[in-house]
C-alpha cells in the first residue's frame, strides 16, 4: 500500500496518487522457526524499492500483533530511526502470528482565505479539525492494512478480520515454496473482491535491471493464484476504492492491502 503520510503529501500536489506515493512493508527476520522460545525482529518502512530502507520509517501507532491463540502480543524494543522502524517479538506460543499495521483514516483538503489546507487523521477527529462548511472541501477515507506472517512450529489457521481489504490465505502464508503455486482470496469487508489487480514483486531489486512484477487479477470469487518463480521475500499489493465511507463528508473510501511473504527453496 501507499504510505498514508506520503499519500497525503502526494494528494495535495499531484495525481494520479499511485504514481506519487511510496510503498510500505514489514520485513521479518525469519518466517519459519523451530525453537520453543523464538524471537523475530521486524523492520517497517516506506519507500520505493521493496525491502530497501532508503526513505522513511513506518509509523507503528497502529501496529497489531495477534498470537496464534488470538491474544495480542506486545512488541518489544520498539524504535523508530531515520529510515525504518523496528520491533522484536518473542514467540512463546506454537503457531502463526499475524503482524499488521492497520490504518483507518480520513484525508481532507479545503481552502481558507484562498490558501490550500489539508488534514489527515482519524475519522472521529475530522469535525474538530476541519471547519464546517469549509470552501472546496474534499474528504476521502482510507483503510489500509500492511502485514506479514511468522510461524513457530506448526502453522495455524488465520481468521479473517472482515474489515477493509484483506487477503485470506487458502495456502498458508508460511508454507510457500519456489516452483509451487499458492492460492489466495481477496476480501473487501468480508466479501469476495472480484476483478481487483494484485501486484507481486520479489525483493532484491537492487541486483537486477527489471522489477519483474507479476500482475494478477482476482476472479469472480476474489481468488487468485501465484506461482512462485524462485525463493525470496515477496511484496504483494492490492488496491481498491468504494463509496462505503463512515464519515458523511467523504464520498470515497480508498482501500489498500499489502503483505510480505517469504518463499523458501525446495
Amino acid at each position, binding site marked *: 500500500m501507499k504510505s498514508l503520510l506520503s499519500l497525503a503529501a502526494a494528494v495535495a500536489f499531484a495525481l494520479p496518487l499511485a504514481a506519487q506515493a511510496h510503498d510500505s512493508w514489514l520485513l521479518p527476520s525469519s518466517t*519459519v*522457526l*523451530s*525453537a*520453543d*522460545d*523464538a524471537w523475530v525482529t521486524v523492520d517497517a518502512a516506506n519507500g520505493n524499492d521493496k525491502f530497501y530502507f532508503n526513505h522513511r520509517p513506518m509509523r507503528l501507532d497502529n501496529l497489531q500483533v495477534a498470537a496464534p491463540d488470538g491474544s495480542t502480543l506486545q512488541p518489544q524494543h520498539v524504535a523508530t530511526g531515520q529510515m525504518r522502524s523496528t520491533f522484536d517479538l518473542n514467540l512463546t506460543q506454537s503457531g502463526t502470528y499475524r503482524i499488521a499495521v492497520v490504518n483507518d483514516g480520513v484525508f481532507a483538503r479545503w481552502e481558507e482565505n484562498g490558501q490550500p489546507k489539508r488534514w489527515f487523521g482519524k475519522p472521529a477527529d475530522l469535525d474538530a479539525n476541519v471547519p464546517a462548511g469549509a470552501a472546496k472541501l474534499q474528504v476521502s477515507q482510507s483503510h489500509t492494512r500492511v502485514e506479514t506472517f511468522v*510461524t513457530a*512450529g*506448526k*502453522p495455524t489457521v488465520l481468521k479473517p478480520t472482515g474489515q477493509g481489504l484483506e487477503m485470506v490465505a487458502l495456502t498458508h502464508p508460511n*508454507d510457500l*515454496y519456489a516452483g509451487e503455486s499458492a492460492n489466495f482470496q481477496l476480501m473487501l469487508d468480508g466479501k469476495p473482491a472480484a476483478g481487483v489487480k494484485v501486484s507481486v514483486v520479489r525483493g532484491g531489486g537492487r541486483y537486477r535491471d527489471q522489477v519483474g512484477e507479476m500482475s494478477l487479477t482476482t476472479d469472480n470469487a476474489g481468488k487468485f493464484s501465484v506461482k512462485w518463480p524462485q525463493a525470496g521475500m515477496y511484496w504483494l499489493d492490492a488496491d481498491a476504492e468504494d463509496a462505503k465511507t463512515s464519515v458523511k463528508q467523504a464520498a470515497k473510501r480508498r482501500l489498500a492491502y499489502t503483505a510480505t511473504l517469504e518463499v*523458501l*527453496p*525446495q
Partner: protein
Amino acid sequence: MRTLLLSAMLGGTLALPAQAADLKVDVEIPRLNAAEYHRPYVAIWIEREDQSVAADLALWYDVDKKDNEGTKWLKDLRQWWRRSGRDHSYPIDGVSGATRPAGRHALSFPGDTSPLAELAPGRYSLVVEAAREKGERELLRLPFTWPAAQPEHAKARGEHELGSVALDLAP
C-alpha cells in the same frame, strides 16, 4: 516371528505390509576441512510419492542442550521441517538422537516392528537431509518399493554435506 506365524495362519491371502523385511541404511558424513566445524543435523525419513512422510527414522541434532535449545536450528533441515518436523514436539521418542561424527553410520530397522510394520505396500523414497552450522545443506532421495520381493540395493552420493548413502532391503 509373530508376523510370520500370522501370515502363515492367514494362508497368505491378505497382502500384509512388511512381512518382516528389514531396511538397512548406511549414511556417510564426510570429513570436511572447515575452520569451524560443527557436526551436521541430519534427518532420515521415508517419503510417500506425494512427498508426505510415511515414517521418521532418525533425527540427529543437539538433543542434549538444556531447555530444548537444540531445536532452534531444526528448521534448517528445510524439507524435513516442512514435511514432518513442525508437527512434532521434542525430543521425538525413538527418533531423536545426538549428532554424529564424520564417518559411516549403519542403521537397521526391522520390518516387524514400528514404524516399518505399519508401512503399507507401495512406492517410497528414503530421504536423507543434512544441514550444518556455518556449512551447507544437502538432500538425497533413494526410491524403493515396499515390501521388497527380492534383496534390493540402492545408492547415492552427496557432494557437500553427505557422502555415500546406501539402502538395503531384505525380503
